[in-house]
Structure formats: structure tokens, C-alpha cells
């Protein structure tokens, strides 16, 4: 399975003609310096190089790289002061929030793409789709389908809170000059995985922007998993919980008894 992933992940060609009809379509090819990141006991984050080439690159073109981690559901709660104490209130469930999300580009995103093209592809922290399905419904207003939130305008604060929280742990990031253009349509960027990087399957998408729109893209897969001792312990704890518990207790008893025996002899 891992071998298969690695093989297919290595080079995936871009799909030409995303939006712009062009006489000859540019193509993006990308690869990673490492397709599998192993979390071992000494894991303290990792830097991975994403590199590739663009055919048919023009001088005014821009590149944007988006790395998305595995999606999870989150609960965001607002703290409110009750009897002088701050208590978590008003939970809102957000579905399919990427646990890791980083954007690197050649120039600031606002200069690279139009609002609608960035929004459509979910590029950039302010365009990242964060949906709270339980508190949302679609309504037809003035003949247009719009999403209305039960939480009202506050939903924006909730979204901002997710992004702020993740940026603090470097799990969300946006770097306006993160992509380096080299000669001959080659490019490279560093994907920084912080110590808190969650395990799972990641995708790195490379978008080629021309005149404010994405005209080509390519994507590479990345896998983060626990390895060695960390993996053994984690799997043991989750698959044989009761045995793990017994081992934990036995080790503690041995430790306490052993320490007493050693120190009493002196």
C-alpha cells in the first residue's frame, strides 16, 4: 500500500485547461523530497522540499502551493464569564476541517488571484472552507441560494478562532514569498511540518495562476505516520487496551518496588 502510494505520488501530471482557453496549455509537474514522514521518538517537526517544473511558463505567472492535512470534525466553544468564571459555552461543530493547512506563493495571494478563483479552490486562510453543517441551512433569497448560519455573524468569529488557534501551533500557515522560482520554469518551496503535525494523508496542490485565475495544477501526496517504538506503543494501546493497562500497572509496581529495594540497601 505504501509502495503503491509512493509510486503514484511521485509524479502526477497537472490537468490542463482549468479555466482559461489557451492556444497551448501550461502544465505543472511536482514532487516532494520525501513522500513519507515518519514520527519517531525524536520527531520535532520536519521540513520537506516540494519542487517541480512548469512548462509554458510566462513571466507574469504566479505559483501557489497548498498543503492540506487529514480532515477532522471540530467543536468550537466560546468562553463566557459566568459568576466570574470563564466557562465554555455555545458549541458549534465544524465538519471536515483540515488538521494542517499551509499556503505558499510567489507573491501575496491578493495580487496573485481574483477573489472568486481563490474562494472556489479554497486557497488562503481567509478562503479556506470551514463549514458548520449543524448550524447552517440554505435559503433562497432574492432568487439566489445562500447559506445562512443560525449563529449569525458570530460564525465569522468562530472561523477566525480556528485559524488563530491553528496558526499558534504552526499547523496553519500562509507565506507570501514561500515559493522560489528558479530558471527554466523550475520552482521549489519548503513545507514546514511542526512538532504537532497530525498523522494521516496529506495532499500538496500546486496551482499556476495567470491573469488572476488558476490555469493549471498538479498534486502530490504525502503520508505522515508513526513509526518504530511510537507506532508499537500507539497500536498496542488502541488494539489491546486492557493488556496495555495491565502492563502499565505492572511496570509501575516493578518500578516502585525496585526503587525501594535499591535505596534501602544503601
Amino acid at each position, binding site marked *: 500500500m505504501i509502495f503503491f502510494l509512493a509510486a503514484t505520488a511521485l509524479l502526477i501530471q497537472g490537468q490542463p485547461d482549468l479555466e482559461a482557453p489557451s492556444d497551448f496549455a501550461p502544465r505543472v509537474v511536482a514532487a516532494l523530497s520525501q513522500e513519507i514522514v515518519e514520527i519517531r521518538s525524536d520527531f520535532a517537526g520536519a521540513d520537506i522540499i516540494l519542487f517541480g517544473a512548469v512548462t509554458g511558463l510566462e513571466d507574469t505567472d504566479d505559483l501557489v502551493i497548498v498543503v492540506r492535512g487529514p480532515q477532522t470534525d471540530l467543536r468550537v466553544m466560546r468562553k463566557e464569564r459566568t459568576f466570574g468564571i*470563564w466557562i465554555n459555552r455555545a458549541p458549534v461543530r465544524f465538519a471536515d476541517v483540515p488538521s494542517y493547512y499551509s499556503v505558499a506563493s510567489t507573491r501575496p495571494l491578493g495580487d496573485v488571484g481574483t477573489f472568486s478563483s481563490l474562494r472556489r479552490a479554497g486557497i488562503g486562510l481567509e478562503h479556506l472552507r470551514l463549514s458548520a453543517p449543524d448550524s447552517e441551512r440554505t435559503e433562497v433569497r432574492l432568487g439566489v441560494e445562500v447559506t445562512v448560519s443560525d449563529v449569525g455573524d458570530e460564525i465569522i468569529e468562530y472561523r477566525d478562532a480556528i485559524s488563530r488557534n491553528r496558526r499558534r501551533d504552526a499547523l496553519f500557515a500562509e507565506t507570501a514569498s514561500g515559493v522560489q522560482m528558479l530558471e527554466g520554469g523550475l520552482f521549489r518551496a519548503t513545507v514546514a511540518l511542526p512538532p504537532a503535525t497530525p498523522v494521516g494523508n496529506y495532499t500538496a496542490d500546486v496551482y499556476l495562476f495567470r491573469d488572476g485565475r488558476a490555469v493549471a495544477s498538479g498534486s502530490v501526496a504525502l503520508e505522515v505516520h508513526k513509526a518504530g517504538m511510537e507506532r508499537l506503543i500507539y497500536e498496542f494501546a488502541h488494539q489491546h487496551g486492557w493488556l496495555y493497562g495491565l502492563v*502499565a500497572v505492572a511496570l509501575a509496581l516493578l518500578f516502585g518496588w525496585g526503587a525501594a529495594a535499591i535505596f534501602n540497601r544503601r
Partner: protein
Amino acid sequence: MQIYLPIAEISVNIFLLLGLGLGVGFLSGMFGVGGGFLMTPLLFFIGIPPAVAVSTEANQIVASSASGALAHWRRRSLDIKMGLLLLLGGTAGSIAGVQLFAFLRSLGQIDLIISLSYVSFLGVVGGLMFIESVGAIRRRGREKTATQPVSKRRKRRLIDRLPFKTRFPSSGLYLSVIPPIIIGFFVGVLAAIMGVGGGFIMVPAMIYILRMPTSVVVGTSLFQILFVTALTTFLQATQNHTVDLVLALLLMVGGVIGAQLGARAGRKIKAEELRIALALMVLIVCTKLGWDLVATPNDLFAILPMQEGGH
């Protein structure tokens, strides 16, 4: 040097963990307390998820209480009958506590409840201990002139009217079985929710409520703590998968060495001064946790994972 903890899923400095174990172990050896009430909040402060901190700390307390319990067992300075009754209540309490923990976690209120429990218990215990030891030091000054009148006669209290009375030969008591079971249950719940052994609740309860002789109090309390924390570790590991073996082992290494050193240092200091110092320490931890509850947080939003299927 950083080490990645497989269950807590964060990377922590290994020397920080060893140092914490050593420091808290030293204090617990010096003061003769379990140290869980200090270690668990410290683990929160360095970023260990509360669920993992509480469960793992229970595991560490197994190690730190094992040697003490063994020593008392050899000297027979414990009331086994009382210990078994406390344990009976403790077992039920621990089971209930682990369920309550999981329930509160699903509500997103576990951090609040843990903090509130700490603030209230540490505040009461620390405050009482402080007042009591200051009083003891004052009395020491006056002892030469006047002796305290000690009333030997015990009033008949509510506790003496309860049914199911039985004899506790080691403690020299004739008492209902209900109070020990209730105290045990209460401490079992605390062990599961707060990640403490509960000695700081149980020892005063044994002395002031059950009126056990002090000679068997510490041994009996350690006996109960050992079994209840062992059970809590097992239940948390089975049900919530929140015991981090790597973290536990690092804390144990520092803890057992620190406890031995602390015990040696403690013999050189007078008991009352030691108690005042412990009371102050308890009050400092209490104040810090209490302040965090009322101070305006940096971020008014909390991001919590959804709980389906464990971690």
C-alpha cells in the same frame, strides 16, 4: 532533547519531564504526600492534554505509592479491614469517575471541572493545613508554661448512629462500615477526575471523621491509593486509551529518585515548618489555577476535538 509522546501526540523536552518528576518527587518525599496534585496541573501547564495527564499521573502514583505501601505492609502499620472497605468504595468510585470523566469530556467541560475541583480542594486543604500548623507553632512557644487540656471524652456524633457496625481491631474502633465506603468512593472519583491519589483528602478524613489512630493512617491510605490508582490506570487504558507509557516511565524515573532524596532532606526539618511550607505550596498551585479561571483568557474560543471513537 525532544521526545515524542506516542499517546499525548506532542513533542516535549525529555529533561523537562525528568526534572518535573525529580522536583515533584523530591517535594512528595519530603512532605510525605503523593505529589499527584502538583504533577497533574504542571502537566497541563506544559501542554499535555488533560485526559492524558490525568490517566498517566494515576499510573505514576502506582509506582510512587508501591514502595511506601510495601514498607507499611511489612511493618503491619496499616488497618487492612479498613483499607479493604475504603478500597471497596474506591473501586466503585473509580469506575464512576472514569465514566464521569468521559461524559464531561464529551460536553467540553472537563478542563473546567478539573480546575474547579483543584481550586476548591487545594484551597480548603491548604488553608486548613496552614491555619493548623501556624497554631501548632504558636502553641509550641506556650507549651513550657501551660499544658493544653485534652478532652478524652468523645461526643456521640451522627457517624456513631449509623447501622452495620463492626470492629476494627488494628485501629481500635467500633464503627459503621458506611463512612469508610463513602470516603473511599469519593476519593476514587477524585482519583479518576483529578489524577491524584487522594491522600490529601483521605488522611484528614481518616483522622477527623473516622478518628483512626495516626500510626495506621498513612499505611492504610497508601494501601487504598495503590489499588485505586492501579484500577484507574487500567480503566483509563481500556476505555479512553489515554495512558502514555513513555510519559509515565519518564515521570517515574525522576519521581522515585526525587522521592528518596526528598525523604532524606525532610528528616532535617521540623514537622510544623514542613507543614507550613507544604500548605503554602498547595495554596500557590490553588491560586494559579484559580486565577486562570477568572482572568480573561487570551483567546475567548476553545477548539476541541470531536470525541467519536476515542482520540
